[in-house]
Structures are given as structure tokens and as C-alpha cells.
């Protein structure tokens, strides 16, 4: 018996009436993230009916349709607001948001910071491919400085967002980063994120060869995975590195673990309190 849930099990979570292979390009890491998400849900033993996958727009938004959960493909950047509504309406459900970097950090940035501040019990999965893939390779807020894109043909001037620091600052309960190369680590992180009450955010670094790699000197999808293998380093080891050696390295692992209870729990606890005296024969 293998240690992990293999593709035979993954196949049981895919929609059999949907056309496969999925629409994403060859070598796109999004499929790996989806597989990892399925594995983590599987290892937690959560029934399909209790999982709601809320996706935004873009390549990451297209993932939801392939999995046999309750799936909702929302508007661009607004996935977290839909998810907030669902979680508040039915706190029993496990709500997982699939968003891209443009989705979560640019158009949906406001929803992201407020979901983190509110600490709503939703797991946000940010699939960061450093680019707007589906619309043809325009710069996103996660595009690294100096990179070439369709909208920055002479090189990106502005700095990119650090998703982890953003979520930490906004008060998220759990913040972690993983890559699609380090799949087992990513799965572990996702399991923790789904288990933890309150708002948890996982940034998954996933390469986009078609729109980002080709314009930035990566000859094949494989090159991009080699780049992840080379640059990613556990956060523990990263912290031990001297300042001058940190440049260009990508720390992965768990960054924030807090224990605030989720907003929905707080709300319903307040409601139970409010309803108590009324039972004594108020109105």
C-alpha cells in the first residue's frame, strides 16, 4: 500500500460526466494543486457533500468544474465574498476558495484582507502563477520585478505582493506557502489549513509556462519545475540564512498559526446568548 492516495482515488473525486483532460495547458501546475487538494480532503475523510469549492475567474477558476463537490464558479475576485455568505449561511460546510494571484491579490485584494481580518472559517487557496494566464499573459500583482509580460514588454517596474506577509498583516489564522514541486509538503499544509478553524490561506506556487515561462527564458515546463526545486527552501532553513543569501530564495512552509475562533462560530455563539433570555418568556 502506498503512503499517498494515488490517482485511482483522485479519479473517484472527478466528475465523470465532464470532459478530460482538463482545459489547462501542458505542464500547468494547477492540475497538481487540484490533485493535492483532493488528496488532503480525502485524507481528512470529509464527505463530498460537505465540501464547497468556490472559485474565482481565470485558470484557477476553471478547476472547480472538474471536481465532484459542490462547486461554484463566481465572478472575478469575488470568490471570498461568496464563500463568506455560504459559510455564514451554513457553517457546517467546509468552504474552500480557489483563486489565482490576480483574483486574490488584485481585483479581490479587498475581499482577501477583510476575510482575513474577519477570520471567517474559509480556506483560501491562492494559486500563484505570477501572471494573468487565461487572458493572455498580462502582468499581475505577483509578477516578479523585471519580468517580461504582455503589458510590461520592457520589464515589470513595480514590486510584487508577498501574499504571505499580506495575509499575516491582515490577521489570518493560518498562513502557509507551498509549491507544486513539493507536493507532499503542500498536502500537509492543506490538511492543516482545512482543519484549522478561522481563516486560513495557502499560497501554492504553480508555474505557468505558456504565458510566463516562455517569455522569461524557461524553455519548457520542466525548466520551471527545476526552478521551483532550486529556489524553494523551507522557512526554517530560510530564517537561518544570512540576509545576503536570502535574495531569490522562496521560503515555503507554515508562517502563521493563530488560534482565534472563526467568525461564524463567534456569531452563532452571540446568537445563542441573545436567544437565551428570550426563552424565559420575553416576547
Amino acid at each position: 500500500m502506498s503512503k499517498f492516495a494515488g490517482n485511482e482515488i483522485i479519479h473517484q473525486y472527478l466528475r465523470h460526466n465532464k470532459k478530460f483532460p482538463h482545459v489547462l495547458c501542458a505542464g500547468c501546475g494547477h492540475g497538481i494543486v487540484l490533485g493535492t487538494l483532493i488528496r488532503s480532503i480525502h485524507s481528512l475523510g470529509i464527505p463530498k457533500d460537505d465540501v464547497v469549492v468556490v472559485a474565482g475567474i481565470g485558470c484557477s477558476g476553471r478547476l472547480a468544474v472538474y471536481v465532484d463537490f459542490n462547486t461554484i464558479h463566481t465572478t472575478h475576485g469575488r470568490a471570498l465574498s461568496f464563500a463568506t455568505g455560504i459559510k455564514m449561511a451554513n457553517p457546517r460546510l467546509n468552504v474552500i476558495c480557489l483563486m489565482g494571484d490576480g483574483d486574490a491579490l488584485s481585483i479581490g485584494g479587498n475581499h482577501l484582507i477583510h476575510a482575513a481580518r474577519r477570520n471567517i472559517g474559509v480556506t483560501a487557496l491562492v494559486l500563484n502563477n505570477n501572471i494573468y494566464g487565461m487572458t493572455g499573459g498580462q502582468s499581475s500583482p505577483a509578477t516578479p520585478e523585471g519580468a517580461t509580460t504582455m503589458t510590461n514588454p520592457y520589464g515589470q517596474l513595480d514590486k510584487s505582493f508577498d501574499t504571505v506577509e499580506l495575509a499575516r498583516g491582515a490577521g489570518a489564522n493560518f498562513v502557509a506557502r507551498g509549491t507544486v514541486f513539493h507536493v507532499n509538503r503542500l498536502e500537509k499544509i492543506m490538511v492543516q489549513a482545512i482543519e484549522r478553524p478561522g481563516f486560513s490561506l495557502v499560497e501554492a506556487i504553480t508555474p505557468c509556462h505558456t504565458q510566463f515561462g516562455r517569455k522569461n527564458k524557461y524553455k519548457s515546463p520542466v525548466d520551471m519545475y527545476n526552478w521551483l526545486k532550486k529556489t524553494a527552501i523551507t522557512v526554517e532553513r530560510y530564517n537561518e540564512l544570512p540576509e545576503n543569501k536570502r535574495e531569490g530564495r522562496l521560503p515555503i512552509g507554515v508562517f502563521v498559526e493563530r488560534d482565534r475562533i472563526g467568525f461564524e462560530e463567534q456569531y452563532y455563539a452571540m446568537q445563542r446568548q441573545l436567544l437565551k433570555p428570550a426563552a424565559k418568556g420575553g416576547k
Partner: protein
Amino acid sequence: MARKSKGNNSVTIYPDWCKGCGICVEFCPQKVLGLNDQGKATVVREANCIRCGFCELHCPDFAIVVKNKEEPVEVEMENGTPKPKAKAKPKAKGKGA
């Protein structure tokens, strides 16, 4: 777990799902896989497979299945959801109401 059980394993590739990205070929530690003339992954040296699972975990298209010939995985279903094998601890998040 006898993970390094060479010769015991079968590798299946779904050619119609494979998009030929080459990740499995590049990173297979035992060089079990190769690309065929259609640019799709194909099994070249199945006997060398140690069932490390890299290709299966990293296939973006879920197109590879690695099996132990002696102990095939049986997917048990419960209300349409596959039952987890390991110590299951079903735990929903935030039991608010």
C-alpha cells in the same frame, strides 16, 4: 512498507489524458518513463519502478497510475465518497450552529 520493491510495480499511462509536459519523464529517479513519437509519456523500463509516486503526484492531468501488482488498491466507497485508508479523522471546520 516495501516501497523499494523493484519489479513488483505496474505503471499505467492514459495516453488520451497525457499532454506530454514531460514532468514525469524528467524527474523519475529510475528513468522508467520516456516520451514517445507523439510526444506523450510512455513506460520504458517498468521493471525499474520503485513506486516512489513522484510521477503520480506530479501529473497535472491525473494520467498516471502506479500500482503494486501484489497489493492492488481497492477504492472503497461510502455514500459516493471514497473512504480514506489511513486513520480517518473526519473533522469539519467550525461547528458554529
